[in-house]
Each structure stands twice: as structure tokens, then as C-alpha cells.
């Protein structure tokens, strides 16, 4: 019942956020925070009780067994890691949105987003996975479209149509898979024998769906628009959860389910990953818009995740998962602060910024810490993630992967150059008298501090993340032999 309640409670609580606004404007945010803590408590309980390997906490709700349309929920170490991120971001995003306009509708959509998000990570039935997957689009569309920046409507429409189009390929893949395997259940699909041609078709169709969500070059064009136009807390959801859905889907429903086909396509994945890393890196270097730059750095990091996954080994997968955790924590703080910079200076452009450190040292110190983590400073999650991914890729593909550390240097380059132009240096004349340019209120500082604490903690003690899913990954790694 724990997993089902984690899905249903946010959805059932959502209308109360809407109704509650009419009574008191504070009800929606406290409700959302309560649900966030509920998710966190449930996840903590699940992690504490988790036996260490395999699937646990199975729940099977039979709806139509002949068609295998059953809500089958269970979690393993991998899902638990992502559920923990979901709960963590639910709390921080709520705190970051403390003073949002129209709180009723906003938190209604936040809660309507969280329920299916848990479902994506906890569902072992492919059709239900798709149902949850697809439903997350709707709240996101309204979040971007209503609370977004000036070009929000274009971004929301593009986001919805683009990702829905991708999901169509995923759905076709699911249908072809069902007709050949006669089941949607992960347990039965594991180790299924399919005709090699069909299996490759399924793999390609599903990969298009996952690749757009991750996103990787050349399917990434929706992301910079969506990220730039979305309000900052929603950018956190986009980067921290929505992109993880793509990587998680690729891992669970392609690499574990069709290991031999994935091995066949591994060089393709590696090629796309390296392409993504370099392309996004160069785009970020050329970008003057600060949030767009962070968005491209996010694509750059997802390239590392894909690179880790493309090394079809236990080491690669566990490195990719770690990178996912690190990315969720680090990119969130960067998006939040990029949004705050625009809020305070009324400009998005790095060329118009300068010397912010002198005026708001507290916020900018946090920004610098976040940027250093994204670059891969030892002692933060960014370092461990990139290092393990590179080692795994090097191990699997050999010397050719020597180019990847160059990309890491590229990342350091665009971030440092941005810091030098926007944060350090002399303070601009225009900012000297600017009234809005001041430190954040406490409630908005809490989530930022939480992100920093989390990625430093995870960076110093990586084993707390690795230990959660390594037995699972090692067990699945037997399939790749």
C-alpha cells in the first residue's frame, strides 16, 4: 500500500490545493509541503526496510489480467534512488515557490505532477509506466505556459507537441513488444527471447521516446526553450525529474530488458553521447543568455549519463545513476540562481551582468559553489559522477574515450568564463542603485542550502548512493555476459 499511496495521495490532495486557495492563500503551499514530507518519509521508510537487492514492496492490482493491464508496483535500489530525488525536489521546489502567484492552481499542478512521477519510477508494468509517463506532460504544459517568462506560450506548445510526438514512437514500440511477448510485466519481459529483427525495431522505437526526454542531440531542441521560459522551480522539476525519466526508462526498459540488443546499439549510444557532450558544451560556451547556458550544461551532463549507460557494464550503469543524482542536485541550484539573477537584475544576458559578487555576496557564493560542483570539483557529486562515467567508458571503449576529458575541460571553460564575466569583476553602474538587487529571504535560501548540503554530502560519501543500487546493478549485469 505504501507505493500506491505515494502515487494516489498527491493526486487526491491536488484538488484540495485548488479549493484551499479560496479559504486561505497559504493552504496550497503547506499542503504541497506536507505531501513532499510524506513522500520523503515513505521513501525513507522504504530505504530503511529495503532488503538490499532485488525488487521489494511488490503490489499487484489486477485490472485485466488477460491483457496484462495490471498495476504492478515494486521498487529496487534504482527506483528508490530516483524516488528519493523526487521527494527531495518536491520539498525544495515547494519552498522555492513559497511566494508564487496563483498558488492554488500552481500547487494543484505540482501535486498532479508528483503522483504520476512516483508512478513512473515504481511501475513494473510497461503500459502503466507509459500512462504515468505521458500524464506528467499535462501539468508541466500549464506550469510553463502560465507561470513562464515572456515567450512562455511558444515554449509550452513546443514542449508538449515535441515530447508527445516522441512518446508516440515509444507507444508503438510498446505495442510491438506486447504483440511479440504477450506481456507488459517487467518480471516476465526480463530475459525474453525475441526475433532479433523485431527486437532491434522495438529498441529503436523506444529509444526515440527516451532520447527525446533525456534529451540528446539531435532531439534536444525543445529543452532550451522549455527551460528558459519555465519558472525556475519548474525548471528544477524539468531538469531534476523529467529528464531522469528518460534515462531511467532507457535503463529499465531497454538495457535491462533487451541487454543483447542494447549491446549491439551501444556504440551508437556512445556516439550520440559524445556528440551531445561536445555539441552542448560548445553551445553553452557561445551562449550569452545565462539560463540557456545552464540548460545547455544540463544537456551536456545528460550526455555523460548516456555515456555511462552506453558502457553496458555494471560500472557504467552505476556511474550513470550516480551522475543522475549529482545532476539533479547540481543543476537545480544553478537553475534557481540563474532565475534569481534575472529577477534581481532584470536581464538574462551575461554581457550585461558583472560584479554581482560585490552586491549580493551570499547568493553569489552559493552560485559559485554550484558552478564548481557542476565543473567537477573534488568533494562534490559532480566530480565523482564524471570521473566514474569516464572510467567506465574508458574501460569499455578503450582509448577513443580519451576525448571525453577534453569535454570536461570545455565544461570548466564555459562555466569559469561565465563566472568571470557575470559574477566577478567591477560592478556595473546600472546595478549600483538598483533596489531589487539584494539577498534572498530566508525561506528561499533554505532549498539552495539543501542542494549544496546534499551534493557535498553525496560527493564526500558516494558510497551512500552507490550502496543503495549497486547490488541490483550487479545482479542485472549478469544479463550482459
Amino acid at each position: 500500500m505504501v507505493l500506491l499511496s505515494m502515487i494516489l495521495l498527491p493526486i487526491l490532495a491536488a484538488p484540495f490545493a485548488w479549493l484551499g486557495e479560496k479559504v486561505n492563500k497559504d493552504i496550497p503551499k503547506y499542503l504541497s509541503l506536507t505531501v513532499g514530507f510524506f513522500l520523503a518519509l515513505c521513501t525513507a521508510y522504504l530505504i530503511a526496510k529495503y532488503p538490499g537487492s532485488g525488487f521489494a514492496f511488490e503490489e499487484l492490482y489486477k485490472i485485466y489480467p488477460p491483457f496484462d493491464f495490471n498495476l504492478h508496483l515494486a521498487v529496487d535500489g534504482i527506483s528508490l534512488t530516483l524516488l528519493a530525488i523526487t521527494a527531495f525536489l518536491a520539498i525544495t521546489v515547494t519552498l522555492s515557490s513559497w511566494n508564487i502567484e496563483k498558488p492554488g492552481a500552481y500547487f494543484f499542478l505540482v501535486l498532479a505532477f508528483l503522483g504520476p512521477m512516483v508512478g513512473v519510477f515504481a511501475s513494473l508494468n510497461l503500459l502503466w509506466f507509459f500512462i504515468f509517463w505521458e500524464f506528467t506532460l499535462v501539468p508541466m504544459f500549464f506550469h510553463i505556459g502560465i507561470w513562464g517568462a515572456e515567450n512562455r506560450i511558444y515554449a509550452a506548445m513546443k514542449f508538449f507537441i515535441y515530447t508527445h510526438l516522441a512518446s508516440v514512437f515509444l507507444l508503438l514500440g510498446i505495442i510491438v513488444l506486447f504483440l511479440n511477448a504477450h506481456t507488459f510485466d517487467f518480471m516476465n519481459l526480463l530475459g525474453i527471447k525475441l526475433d532479433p529483427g523485431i527486437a532491434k525495431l522495438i529498441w529503436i522505437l523506444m529509444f526515440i521516446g527516451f532520447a527525446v526526454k533525456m534529451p540528446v542531440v539531435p532531439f534536444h531542441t525543445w529543452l532550451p526553450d522549455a527551460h528558459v521560459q519555465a519558472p525556475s522551480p519548474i525548471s528544477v522539476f524539468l531538469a531534476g525529474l523529467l529528464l531522469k525519466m528518460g534515462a531511467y526508462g532507457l535503463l529499465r526498459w531497454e538495457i535491462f530488458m533487451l541487454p543483447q540488443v542494447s549491446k549491439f546499439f551501444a556504440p551508437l549510444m556512445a556516439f550520440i553521447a559524445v556528440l551531445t557532450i561536445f555539441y552542448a558544451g560548445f553551445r553553452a560556451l557561445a551562449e550569452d543568455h545565462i539560463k540557456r547556458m545552464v540548460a545547455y550544461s544540463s544537456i551536456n551532463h545528460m550526455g555523460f549519463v548516456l555515456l555511462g549507460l552506453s558502457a553496458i557494464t555494471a560500472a557504467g550503469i552505476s556511474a550513470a545513476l550516480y551522475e543522475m543524482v549529482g545532476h539533479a542536485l547540481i543543476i537545480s541550484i544553478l537553475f534557481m540562481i540563474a532565475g534569481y539573477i534575472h529577477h534581481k537584475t532584470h536581464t538574462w544576458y551575461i554581457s550585461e551582468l558583472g560584479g554581482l559578487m560585490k552586491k549580493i555576496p551570499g547568493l553569489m557564493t552559493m552560485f559559485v559553489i554550484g558552478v564548481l560542483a557542476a565543473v567537477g570539483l573534488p568533494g562534490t557529486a559532480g566530480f565523482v559522477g564524471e570521473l566514474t562515467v569516464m572510467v567506465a567508458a574508458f574501460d569499455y571503449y578503450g582509448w577513443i574515450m580519451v576525448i571525453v576529458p577534453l569535454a570536461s575541460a570545455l565544461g570548466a571553460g564555459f562555466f569559469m568564463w561565465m563566472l568571470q564575466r557575470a559574477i566577478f569583476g567591477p560592478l556595473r553602474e546600472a546595478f549600483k542603485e538598483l533596489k531589487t538587487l539584494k539577498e534572498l529571504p530566508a525561506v528561499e535560501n533554505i532549498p539552495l542550502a539543501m542542494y549544496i548540503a546534499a551534493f557535498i554530502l553525496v560527493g564526500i560519501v558516494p558510497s551512500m548512493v552507490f550502496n543503495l543500487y549497486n547490488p541490483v546493478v550487479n545482479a542485472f549485469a549478469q544479463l550482459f555476459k
Partner: protein
Amino acid sequence: MNINFLAGTLILALTGAFLPVINRIFRISGVLGAIISSVGYILAGFLIMLSGNGRKLLSSFFVTDSVTQLIGMLILVASWMTMLVVYWITQRDKFINELVAALLISTAGALLLISSTNFVSLIIAMELMTMPTYLMVLFSFDEKSMEAGVKYFFNGALAIGTMLFGVSLLYAITGSFNFEILAKELFRDPLVALAAIFILAGFGFKLTAFPFHFWGPDVYDGTCPGVAALLTGISKSAAFIALMRVVYEALPAISSNLTFIFALLAAITMTVGNLLALAQKRVSRILAYSSVAHAGYTLIAFAALAVPVSVTGILYHSVAYVFMKTAAFLCFAVFLYLWGARTMDDYKGLGKREPLLAALFLIFLLSLAGVPPMAGFISKVFVFTSAVNAGMTWLALVGLLNSAFSVAYYIWIAKQMYLEEPTIEKPLNNPSDKNFILIPLAVMAVFLIVLGIWVNPVVDASAAFISKIGF
């Protein structure tokens, strides 16, 4: 046919027949008329629920099987909700009782149509379903509805004429109208194929399938939207089921010839419908062309008639369609009544004016677009599954791409409602009982969501039908 089902149909038709008479004598108010019709609906629904057991009669003309019961019940609910909304938006019109009477009789015709297993009863039932709608289309008495009415009448006459010609060819070959006998006697023959094409053409008019779709949007746009809800949602769903019976029960002999025709028609119909819908400025025309596109999706399942799951696809799509299309047109009708909103520009900011109504409209639009967890999603899953299963992956891909592009105009309406600033300043009508109208629409939304997750009733009914026709 089960006697209870027949009694239910008759009660519905008689309620319809006597409503104008009662009105002439007692001059009843709108609310009373709605109550009387509701009683008719409830009694009919109760009897249809009981139609599982009881005496059988007219068994060479009609059948009461699982499909009839399920679709009959759902058509009845959709029609009831349509009746309530129509009453509410036109309550001040003096001919409202006549309009609702026509709606009841047409629904009775639809109930007979879905149980016909004989071409005679099929054509009579189809005429019973269509005749009242000829009057209903004319209901707003303006130039546009006159044009729509004439167009609809001639197309309907042409449709029934072509269908009768096809049926008479079949009679010439076998000497029978009965589906069971036809299925046994028919053989692969060019004449049979010709007859089948004429019959399909007749159905094509009813379903607004390409190339017989031209009248659809003009009529749905010209008439008052409550009537359009009946025409697109209920009549078309019933026609889907009737076509399913014809194809699976009467014409299995040439089903392999039909596959390609259906596949081609499906691909063209949905593409044409979606492309034209994208180009429209008026919301009613968008919904009309989306209904053309949805006819195309159903034809995909027909094209896959070699595999059993195609029955599930047809049935599920009809079930989802009857609720989502009817309800979408009803939402349009209510917006037209309250705010006079016709075009996309008028829809700007209506989400802020009518949050709950717009939310319901959004549910129906998302269901039409095939977004889970609404029934429109799972029905599309079944439809495309049947196409892939029948070895027509290309058709499934065409359908899925169409469905993905169709999202553009559904979400465009959502965008106009929620993301733009209002343009209309003052409501056209501002009745005090505004929240009452949400109830019928919410009922339909609940049906859509429940049927989108609880698939058992529809899949069980289709399983019974599959075993009956013996795949």
C-alpha cells in the same frame, strides 16, 4: 431480441412521441420536460440493464448480446446528458420539447441500430435514427442551419440509397437479408464485392469517412451545437457498431478484400481530418474535422479485421468516442450559450472566466488527443495494437503520427483557454443556475476516466462478441 431491451427502446421512443403532445395540452415548463424525459431515460436504462434474461422475440431481426447491452447503456447515458444540456441551453425556446422529442426518438433508433442483425431492420433502424435529426438540424431556423439541413438531408438520402442498392444486390445473390444466412451463403465474387462497396459507401456517409466527409463539418458547424453533439457522438458511434456487425457477421466471405480498402480509407480519412482541423479558426469546425479524423482511427481497427483484437479496438473506440465527442460538442455549446464563443480568438481566457467548465472541456480534449488516463488513450492503444497485430505496422505508424499531430490543435484550444488573456468582456447569458450544467458534463468526464482505467466491461463484451462470431 430481448423483450426488456425492446421495452426500454419503446419507452424511450414513446416518451419522445408524447412529450410534444403533453406540452401542447399542459404547456409544461422546460424543467418539467427535462424531468419527464429523464424518467423515460431512467426506465429505459433500467430495462436495458435487465435485458440479460427474459423472453426473446424478433430474433431474426435483432439480437441482444453483450455488445448491445454495453453500447446501448453508454449511448443512453450520453444521450441523457446531451438532453439535459440541450434543455438547459435552449430552455427559453418554444420548440424545445419538440427538439428533445426528436432526440429521444433518434436515440431509440440508435439502440435498435446497434442490435440489428438483418439488413431490413438495419436500414429501418438507421432511418429511425436519422429522420428525427433532419428536423433537429433545422432547429435554429437561420440561413446557415437551413443550408446545413438541406445538405444533411440530401447526403443522408444518398447514403441510404447507396446502401439499399448494395443490400438489394446481396438479396439478388442469396435471397436473404439475414446476416447469419448471408454469412453462410456468400462467396468470393465480384458482385458481392460490389455490393459490399455500396454498403460501405452508405456507411461512409454516416461515419464521415473520406471521400464522403464533405457534408460533416458544414452540418456540424451550421446546426446548433447540441444537435451536432448527437450527430457526431451518438449517431456515429451507433453506426460504427452497425458497420462492425455487417463486416464481421454478414460479410466474412470477402473480408480479405475489405482489408485494403479499409486501410486506405483509414489512412486518408485521418490525415485529411487532422490536416483540415489544423487549418480551422472556428472551434466547432475543429471539433468537426477531429470527428472525421476519429472516424479514420476506427477504420484502422476495421482494416485489421483479420485479428480478434480489432473487435476490441472498434468497440473501445466507439465507447470512448461516444463520450468524448458528445461531451466536447456540449462544452462548446455551453460556451456558445454563456459567452457567445465561436472562434479560437473568442476562446482566449475562457479558462479564467469558467474554470470548472474549461477544465472539463480540457479533459475531453485530452481524451480526444489520446492522453492517458482517459478512455481515448486506451482505445487508441487497442486500435493500434490491432493494426500491428494484423501486420500493418505502417498503418499504426501513420495513425500514431496523426494522433501526435492532432495534439497540436487540441492543445491549441487549451492554450487559448488558459494561457491567453480574455477578449470577451461580458457574458452573453448569465443564468443563476450556472453550476447545474456542470453535472452532466462531469458525469461524462467520470465515465471517460473510469473507462480509461477499468477496461473490463468493454474488453469482456468484445471477448463475448469475438467468441460468438468464432475467430
